[in-house]
């Protein structure tokens, strides 16, 4: 089968709730189709695989031009949440809760569980050495799905022949 050796690697650099999902969804689809999957977490992306942060990922309505009120079922068309409202305490928590509710309704698992599914499905996951050093993150701070902390050069070596997607 031509697909047998296809490899995909995701570089996850964002720690927002909405930016956590693209690699998880595509990585899971790739595993389901027999493709080798590697995830490399760098910078804010390390939030996704850090025990203290993974269940507290958020999406902020401030300066988020895609966040329309119509997503909440209000007939407001292209009207977004005004930035002045976005700065009200609790708005980010509300938006995060809202997105989590929507995802749950679609049967999409929370990030922690999704990572475990990918890990069980054979995905390899690594942390970025430079960011880990900069943020002062320790091995025990990571979820068990993280195999090790590697340098950028290691990542380039281990993804030879892979299609690389930067998120």
């Amino acid at each position, binding site marked *: 089968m031509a697909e047998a050796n296809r490899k995909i690697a995701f570089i996850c650099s964002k720690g927002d709730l909405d930016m956590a999902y693209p690699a998880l969804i595509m990585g899971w689809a790739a*595993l389901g189709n*027999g493709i080798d999957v590697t995830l490399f977490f760098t910078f804010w992306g390390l939030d996704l695989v850090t025990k203290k942060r993974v269940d507290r990922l958020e999406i902020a309505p401030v300066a988020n031009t895609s966040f329309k009120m119509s997503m909440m079922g209000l007939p407001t068309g292209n009207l977004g949440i005004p930035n002045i409202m976005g700065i009200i305490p609790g708005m980010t928590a509300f938006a995060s809760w809202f997105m989590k509710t929507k995802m749950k309704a679609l049967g*999409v698992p929370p990030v922690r569980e999704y990572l475990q*599914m990918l890990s*069980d499905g054979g995905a390899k996951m690594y942390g970025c050495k430079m960011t880990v050093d900069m943020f002062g993150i320790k091995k025990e701070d990571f979820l068990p799905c993280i195999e090790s902390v590697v340098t950028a050069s290691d990542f380039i070596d281990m993804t030879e022949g892979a299609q690389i997607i930067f998120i």
Partner: protein
Amino acid sequence: MLADLTAIAFNEEGFMTDPSQWTKEIAEVLAKQEGLETLTPEHWKIIDFCRQAGLASGKSPTLRQITTGTGISTKDLFALFPKGPAKKVAKIAGLGKPEGCV
């Protein structure tokens, strides 16, 4: 004696187009084509679940629906149907390509 597939309709991706043509004997032949020499009771548990879910909804269940529906872990599912369980299970169960993303 292997089942004869000449009368079975497949689409260009190798999925059966008429789930009512499916039999257990056909599943065994399809499994061999997918590299699975023998189907164990664990395999059948998954295939039977997919048949039920697929015929009830008209769609192949997703991997997550399979693990939650059968109680078989993700690790075991990937071990039972190595190299791409999503398409393999659907093909062997005589269903279409799974449409869900999770």
